[in-house]
C-alpha cells in the first residue's frame, strides 16, 4: 500500500470512527458519604433519602419576616441545587401555605432540644448565623415524616457586615440537607462541610447530590 493510500485509509477510518462514536460521559467518582448513619440495636444502619419524581416540585415554605431576605436566600439555594441535575431529579418551589409544605424554613434559632423522635443535623457554626435541619424519621427507619424543618438564624445584629453572605451560604447548606445530603463533608472546600467556608457548592458537592438521586432510597417521605 502506498503512503498516500495509507494516509487516506487512516483518515477515512478516523472520520468513520468520529461519525459513529457516541458522546462520552464523564466518570462520576468524586463524592463523599451523604447517608445518615444511625445507631441501632443491631449495629449502625444507613439512611438514604431523596425526593421521588412524584414529590416534585418540593414545596418549601419560608418565614418571610424572621431573617433578612430569607425567602430570596432560600430561592437561590433551591436554584443552586436544581442546577446540579441534568435530568430534573430535583425541583423545588416556594409556597405560601405552610400547611402543605414539604420543607419549612424558619429564620429563628432551632429549638434547644429537638423533639424526641427527631434527628437533628446541626451545622453552620459561623459567628454571624447558624443553621440546623430536623428530620422526623420513624423508629424503624422506613419513613421520613414531613415537613422537614430547617432553621437559618442570624446570631448578630441585622446590620452586621457579612450577615447576608452567611445567611446565603447557610441556606444553600441547609437546603443541601433537605435534598438528601444527610451527612457533612470532611472537606472544608465543600459547602456541606460542618462549618462552611465557601459560598457555593463545590464539584464534589454537586457530584454527591447527583449520584445520590440515582440510588434507591431506604426511606420514603410521607405527609404532610
Amino acid at each position, binding site marked *: 500500500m502506498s503512503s498516500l493510500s495509507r494516509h487516506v485509509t487512516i483518515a477515512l477510518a478516523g472520520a468513520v470512527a468520529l461519525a459513529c462514536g457516541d*458522546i462520552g460521559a464523564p466518570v462520576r467518582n468524586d463524592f463523599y458519604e451523604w447517608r445518615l448513619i444511625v445507631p441501632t440495636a443491631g449495629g449502625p444502619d444507613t439512611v438514604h433519602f431523596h425526593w421521588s419524581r412524584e414529590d416534585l416540585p418540593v414545596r418549601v415554605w419560608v418565614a418571610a419576616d424572621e431573617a433578612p431576605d430569607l425567602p430570596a436566600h432560600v430561592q437561590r439555594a433551591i436554584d443552586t441545587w436544581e*442546577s446540579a441535575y*441534568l*435530568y*430534573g431529579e430535583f425541583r423545588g418551589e416556594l409556597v405560601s401555605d405552610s400547611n402543605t409544605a414539604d420543607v419549612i424554613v424558619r429564620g429563628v434559632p432551632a429549638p434547644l432540644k429537638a423533639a424526641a423522635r427527631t434527628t437533628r443535623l446541626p451545622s453552620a457554626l459561623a459567628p454571624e448565623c447558624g443553621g440546623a435541619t430536623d428530620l422526623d424519621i420513624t423508629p424503624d427507619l422506613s419513613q421520613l415524616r414531613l415537613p422537614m424543618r430547617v432553621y437559618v438564624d442570624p446570631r448578630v445584629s441585622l446590620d452586621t457586615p457579612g450577615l447576608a453572605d452567611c445567611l446565603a451560604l447557610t441556606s444553600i447548606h441547609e437546603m443541601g440537607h433537605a435534598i438528601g445530603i444527610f451527612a457533612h463533608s470532611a472537606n472544608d472546600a465543600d459547602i456541606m462541610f460542618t462549618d462552611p467556608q465557601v459560598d457555593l457548592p463545590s464539584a464534589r458537592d454537586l457530584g454527591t447530590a447527583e449520584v445520590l438521586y*440515582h440510588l434507591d432510597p431506604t426511606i420514603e417521605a410521607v405527609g404532610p
Partner: protein
Amino acid sequence: MPKSFLLPALLLFAGATGLEAQTDYYARVGVIGASKLMRDVIIDDISVRPSIAPMLALGASLPIGPGYRAGLEATFASGSYHQEEDGVESDLGTLRTGSLLLGFDGPIVPSLRWRVGAGAILYWPSEDAGIFLQGGTTKFLAGFGVDYRRPVMTKWDLMASARYDYHRFTTEELERRGFSQNQPVSRVSLSVGLARGLR
C-alpha cells in the same frame, strides 16, 4: 429564531418575486422522530430522546438546470423530550427544533424526486435547565429524502415527503460537565402537504 435562519429564507423569497413563474413553493405537515440525543451513566445507563413530534415544513426552489432545482427547506417541530433510566421514563419538558437546509433535487421517475441538502438545526428548549442549562444549541445538519407529487388542482400538487437527516448533538452544559465528543442523531420525518406546482 436567530437571524442566521431567517435571513437566507427572506432573501430567497424576496429574490424569487421576479422569478415567480419558475419558483416552486410548498408547505407540509407531518411527524418527525429522532434517535437518542445523548447517553450517560450514573449508576445505570441513562438516555435522553425526543418524542415523536408534529412538524411543519416550508420550502421553495428555483430551477438550476433541466430537471434540477435548488432551494431552501425550513422545518419546525415541537414536542416533549424525556429521559430513560432503568426502564423508567421521565418527562424533561418541551423541546422545539428548527432546521434550514439548502438543497438540490432532481427526478427519479415521473412524480418522484430525490433531494439532498445541508444546513443547520437549532434546538430551542422551553426552559434553560438540565442538559440545556446554558441554553439551546445549533448544529450542522445534512440530509436527503424523496418527494412524491401528484396534481390535484390546476396549480396545486399533493406532496408527500420522506426525509432523513443527520447531525451530531451536544450542548454547552454537557461540554462544561466533561462530556466528550458528541452524539450522532438521526431524524426521520414523514409529511404531506401542498405544492404550487409547475406545469
